[in-house]
């Protein structure tokens, strides 16, 4: 089989590889259906320490503390989870210059079936923009590694939080159709 005919690695394998390559050892999450394969993979991989606190805000606190202690971490969440974070981002991560990494599975767009999710989604980018937080929406597999890797590096080097938004175009998202 030639390289061209081999199917590309799924998004979660590439993302896991990028996290490892950047020594991001602490994974925290509040679950999301789309993130399931990534969550399963980090649990199965001894490289990572995985913690699942009941609130995203708590996860940001844990990751912030770990970074100050010398361990890099990330918070995995859904759009609605991000909507609970403006206070901690504005009063901890941004002013203290702590590179909290966030991976957000995007619900609420491109075929959303729940109007609540659609409304919540509309709050996400204005919050990120108003706080000046670097964020990128990843739509393509062939751009995933570059965007994720460079965003993580920039966050760490500039001591600033950053968000990677995983579009349904990348992950398939969640729809009513089975």
């Amino acid at each position, binding site marked *: 089989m030639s390289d061209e005919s081999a199917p590309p690695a799924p998004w979660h394998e590439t993302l896991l590889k990028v996290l490892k390559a950047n020594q991001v050892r602490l994974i925290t999450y509040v679950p999301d259906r789309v993130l399931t394969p990534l969550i399963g993979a980090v649990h199965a991989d001894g490289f990572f320490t995985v913690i699942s*606190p009941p609130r995203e805000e*708590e996860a940001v606190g*844990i990751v912030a503390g770990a970074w*100050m*202690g010398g361990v890099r971490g990330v918070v995995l969440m859904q759009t609605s989870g991000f909507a609970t974070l403006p206070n901690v981002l504005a009063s901890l991560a941004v002013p*203290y210059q702590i590179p909290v990494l966030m991976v957000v599975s995007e619900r609420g767009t491109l075929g959303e079936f729940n109007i609540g999710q659609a409304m919540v989604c509309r709050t996400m980018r204005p919050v990120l923009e108003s706080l000046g937080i670097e964020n990128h929406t990843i739509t393509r597999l062939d751009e995933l590694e570059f965007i994720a890797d460079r965003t993580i590096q920039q966050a760490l080097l500039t001591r600033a939080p950053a968000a990677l938004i995983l579009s349904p175009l990348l992950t398939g998202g969640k729809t009513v159709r089975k």
Partner: protein
Amino acid sequence: MSATELSPGTRDSAKVMNRTDLSKRLVARLHGGEAVIGGIGNTNFDLWAAGQRPENFYMLGSMGLACPIALGVALAQPQRRVIGIEGDGSILMQLGCLGTIAAQGQKNLTIVIMDNGSYQITGGQATLTARGTDIVAVARGAGLEKSAWAADEKDFETRIDRALAADGPWLIAARIDDKPPAAETERNPARIRDRFMQGLGVKS
């Protein structure tokens, strides 16, 4: 441990102490580079007033996150003892973190709750602890078995010493009065963070 040492005590039977005094007593017992995270407002003000150790972190916002931040530090540096100090109003806002810490079984972590039964800094409005919620009972219910009320100042010191010597996670709750803090923390977050990381021996 004796039966009395294991007994959680009750909020009603705990002596009402003073936060400035307890913060000084706590800091006086630190000799091993322990990291201390002070929660929002008065809690970190009195930590600041007790001596500006480089291993101290002062929270200027993010109400309720002193213990999660302490857990993160404790995870990153398992050889170091870490203490999170939080007010009752603050811990009530983030009770889930007690379960996270219990589930993680974080041995090098101690939580200290300064319970004045009120949101003192915003005007002294009553919190739920003034109306029957017992933080030690909540913590034990969340899985933190080594949780207890400090009966008085001497007992507080004994419990701190034990928490710094033996495996946790520990939770020590102290009833405190409504006296104001002894000073106010300098509000320079980037400097606080930078100094804290230097204190922890981490290059930022």
